């Protein structure tokens, strides 16, 4: 809200400079976000929090300053000499729960014209355009006292009456009602929206906007001025349903001052008489739901124990009184009744805040808690373990050259199409956002791959080569109704799983050391390194059937029998749909379920004693069908029933040359060692020979000469 410093001084004699005053407002909870210096005034932009509708006016802020500085407050002039009698005019509140009070006055023979210059200027400084003296005065009082008023052209009101009610009450259920508002729109109204009616029609939307037909025009002579209290929730619902936000609805939905409305009405007619002439008629004031302030008991001791202060009883009373709270002192506590403009004060903690505010947050001492050591609940223990494993995975990816990306959790339907996921794929069970900012962000991600592909494209477009990125984020799949013992409400929420995904792309440029490793093995190495860092050994890779991966260069990743994800090269059919200039670019991707993975990592480690005896190694090359997977050899060596085989690895794979078509040569190394003695060469020769025979038998291979 914009407030003029010069205007503010109408209600409080401020000695302090505008800078000091704006500092003070900020420190009592009304943050001054900007200060604008004009030739003859200072305008402050005040951020009033939603609980403080009483401060949505210049007088309201003056009231706060008066409490804080201890300077008296002056209410603007609103008494006028004489009323010209009562007129035959009826006000009928049909929905008293939605309209607790409605007051009005009639002013006759006003002269519509321009407002005085000073008023125009003040309105403009606060961001309101001048229209004519009558409308300007209602706006002026709105800014001054924070109470919205509305002026009707009396001659347009049929039947000398005003009725306040919803279409449901006035017309009955389900009858269509339209209201033509000031802005010219004809708006269909909800059954429960509070409207103002004359004897025949709806003429305004209560607290939101006036009607076109009843507005004050240049030839208006007689007016009816409305000053009312409307239920905040009702006003908010109506304003939201219509998408219509006005200065008036903004204040009513935050709560207006039910006692102020009478004074605001008098202030307005006082100004109208002064600047528009005319006769003022008697006030009509219908007040079916009287406001009774809550009675709050505040223990003195609680103030200090809550804030960490040592305030005396007198201090507590002083701070409460300066804010206009009604007080009754009791032995251990004080009985407090907040004024009608402070409906935000409901409990003792609200009073404690008021005391802290007036005392000054900055003066409250600084003290570290003397807290008991929190017991270690099992819930948190598993969380901590998981987080540690997650950190280990993250560090492993970083160490292996992957840079960390963070993407928005959104995706579009076309991202799933790009991956050619089948209809039944669980990644199609995505959570849809009702109001996305862009259509491409309509869903919560069910896979991290599309975002990483976009990151790669962005980087390539900016000349960045040699890319290895990874991301750890949640994916959101289906719902949790499959879980046992789940709260029925929570069952509606998506199953949130933590995933890690990586992507590698190298532009085949000349490199210094000529590394020709296939990208598949790069990403596989990154994933294997992660298993090593978590001390997971029972992992395996099996051919994958993910539709977006190259069928011959992809694998599903398993830990024991559980599939935890996939690795592989993006299928050419996916790549051809990407906006890439490079010729046949090779992009490797991986995505793993980190929750499952980290659960596997929690096995306790047990030490294996080291052998003191020397080892013996044997190298052998075999010729196999090229379709045989090399991991089979290692698997067979591991499975071979001997305690003496310590390690086995493949050190060469060769095709072509002397090896005939459809065959390949695989060379492997076996290391033998006994735990309790030095092995003899002859013994190892025999063992190795039978192992090789076993391998050849199982693989239908031949020994390479």
């Amino acid at each position, binding site marked *: 809200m914009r407030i003029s410093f010069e205007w503010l001084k109408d209600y409080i004699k401020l000695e302090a400079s505008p800078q000091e005053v704006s500092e003070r407002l900020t*420190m*009592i*909870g009304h*943050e001054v976000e900007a200060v604008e210096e004009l030739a003859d005034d200072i305008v402050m932009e005040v951020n009033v*929090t*939603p*609980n*403080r509708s009483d401060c949505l006016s210049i007088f309201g802020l003056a009231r706060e300053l008066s409490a804080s500085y201890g300077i008296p407050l002056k209410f603007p002039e609103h008494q006028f000499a004489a009323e010209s009698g009562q007129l035959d005019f009826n006000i009928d509140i049909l929905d008293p729960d939605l309209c607790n009070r409605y007051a009005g006055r009639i002013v006759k023979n006003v002269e519509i014209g321009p407002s005085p210059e000073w008023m125009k200027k003040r309105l403009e400084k606060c961001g309101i355009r001048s229209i004519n003296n009558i409308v300007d005065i209602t706006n002026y009082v709105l800014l001054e006292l924070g109470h919205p008023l509305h002026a009707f052209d009396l001659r347009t009101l049929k039947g000398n009456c005003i009725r306040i009610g919803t279409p449901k009450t006035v017309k009955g259920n389900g009858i269509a009602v339209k209201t033509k508002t000031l802005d010219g729109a004809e708006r269909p109204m909800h059954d429960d929206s509070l409207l103002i009616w004359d004897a025949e029609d709806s003429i305004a939307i209560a607290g939101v906007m006036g009607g076109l037909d009843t507005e004050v025009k240049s030839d208006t002579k007689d007016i009816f001025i409305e000053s009312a209290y409307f239920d905040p*929730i009702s006003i908010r619902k109506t304003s939201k349903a219509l998408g219509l936000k006005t200065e008036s609805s903004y204040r009513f939905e935050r709560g207006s001052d039910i006692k102020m409305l009478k004074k605001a009405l008098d202030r307005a007619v006082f100004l109208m008489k002064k600047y528009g002439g005319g006769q003022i008629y008697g006030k009509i004031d219908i007040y079916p739901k009287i406001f009774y302030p809550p009675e709050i008991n505040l223990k003195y001791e609680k103030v200090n*124990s*809550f*804030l*960490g*202060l040592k305030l005396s009883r007198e201090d507590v009373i002083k701070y409460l009184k300066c804010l206009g709270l009604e007080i009754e002192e009791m032995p251990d506590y004080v009985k407090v009744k907040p004024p009608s403009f402070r409906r935000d004060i409901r409990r003792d903690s*609200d009073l*404690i*805040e008021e005391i*802290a505010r007036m005392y000054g*947050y*900055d003066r*409250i*001492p*600084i*003290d*570290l*808690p003397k*807290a*008991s050591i929190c017991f270690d*609940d099992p819930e*948190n223990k598993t*969380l901590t373990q998981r987080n540690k494993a997650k950190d280990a995975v993250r560090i492993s*990816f*970083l*160490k292996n*050259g992957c*840079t*960390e*990306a*963070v*993407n*928005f959790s*959104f995706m579009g339907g076309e991202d799933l199409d790009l991956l050619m996921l089948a209809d039944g794929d669980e990644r199609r069970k995505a959570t*849809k*956002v*009702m*109001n*996305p*900012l862009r259509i491409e*962000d309509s869903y*919560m991600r069910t896979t991290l791959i599309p975002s990483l592909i976009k990151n790669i494209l*962005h*980087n390539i477009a900016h000349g960045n080569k040699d890319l290895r*990125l*990874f991301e750890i984020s*949640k994916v959101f799949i289906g719902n949790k109704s499959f879980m046992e013992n789940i709260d029925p409400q*929570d069952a*509606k*929420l998506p199953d*949130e799983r933590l995933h890690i995904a990586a992507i590698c792309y190298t532009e085949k440029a000349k490199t*210094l050391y000529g590394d020709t490793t296939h990208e598949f093995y790069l990403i596989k190495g990154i994933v294997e390194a992660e298993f090593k860092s978590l001390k997971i050994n029972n992992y395996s890779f099996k051919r994958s059937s993910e539709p977006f991966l190259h069928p011959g260069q992809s694998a599903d990743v398993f830990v024991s029998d559980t599939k935890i994800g996939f690795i592989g090269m993006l299928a050419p059919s996916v790549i051809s749909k990407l906006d890439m200039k490079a010729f046949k670019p090779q992009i490797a991707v991986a995505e793993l379920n980190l929750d499952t993975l980290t659960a596997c990592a929690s096995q306790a480690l047990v030490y294996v004693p080291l052998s003191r005896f020397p080892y013996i190694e044997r190298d052998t090359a075999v010729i196999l069908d090229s379709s045989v997977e090399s991991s089979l050899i290692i698997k067979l060596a591991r499975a071979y029933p001997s305690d003496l085989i310590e390690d086995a690895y493949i050190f060469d794979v060769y095709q072509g040359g002397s090896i005939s078509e459809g065959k390949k040569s695989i060379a492997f190394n076996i290391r033998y060692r006994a735990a309790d003695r030095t092995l003899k060469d002859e013994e190892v020769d025999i063992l190795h020979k039978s192992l090789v025979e076993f391998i050849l038998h199982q693989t239908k291979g031949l020994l390479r000469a």
Partner: protein
Amino acid sequence: MLEDIKEKFIEDLKSAQSLSDLNNLRVQYIGRKGIITSQLKSLSSLSPAERPLAGKIINDIKLLIENEIASKELIHKEAELKNQLLSEYIDITLPGKYTAPGCEHPLNKILLEVIDIFVRMGFSVEEGPEVELDFYNFEALNIPKEHPARDMQDTFYVSDDIVLRTHTSPVQIRGMKKRKPPVRFIAPGKVYRCDADISHTPMFHQLEGLMVDKDVTFSNLKGVLITFIHLMFGHETPVRFRPSFFPFTEPSAEVDMGCILCNSVGCRVCKGSGWLEILGAGMVHPVVLENVGYDPEQYNGFAFGMGIERIAMLKYQIDDIRLFYENDIRFLRQF
């Protein structure tokens, strides 16, 4: 005669240029058919009385020759090794071969730094869903439907009662519901609001903190948060608390720290005020405690929340929030 041999050897040694020259010399003088060897053989023609003296003289010369050749050989060997090593010099300025370690995302780097500070203060780390029930995101936090405070946050809706969480505060509710006090945890994570411009992204990161126990005071809240700001930004950083409003705290506070870019003099980033808003905080609202079944007459506590993007932007002087989500490696490699 022997003196001549010796002099001749010294001349020959001088002209020996290589290891093979030296070897030839060795053969020529002390080899099996060498000059000195034949001299030794001729000793047998002398009388037994003359032999010892003559033998000693010859042996001395032999020793001298051996030593001279050996020492000159050593010099040659060293020179040769040096030459060989020289020929093996490589360009040490070419880059080494390694897998360059990847870089941390600046948001996670900051997040881990913040988490570390609070973990050191005894807070544990708690999590909650990002797609959340309206009940936890709003209602349990004392923000009923139709409350104007809902305007403070533009919400993404999945359905009428499911939202993308607009803050990490719902973790307070879930975290308290599953334990009994005392409670002390932080909840970092992603949050969502439908807003996008130079200083807003539809997803961003927050970190929430909560402490509930008997006799927790507003002074304690100040103590913990000032300690955090001092550990994060330096011990000289000025901090101020001012009243504010959050539906789930009472009293509520906004925490400002002195602008670290201009040393509180006033600049573009702090809009000339010298202060930067860094945290929202307050004493847990009694309604919130009641909502999770804690007795507000017996227990109280404080809660706070901060935006991780904001801290990262201040710390690294990043002026456009969108950079965090482009994942351009020229940006990421700086962290």
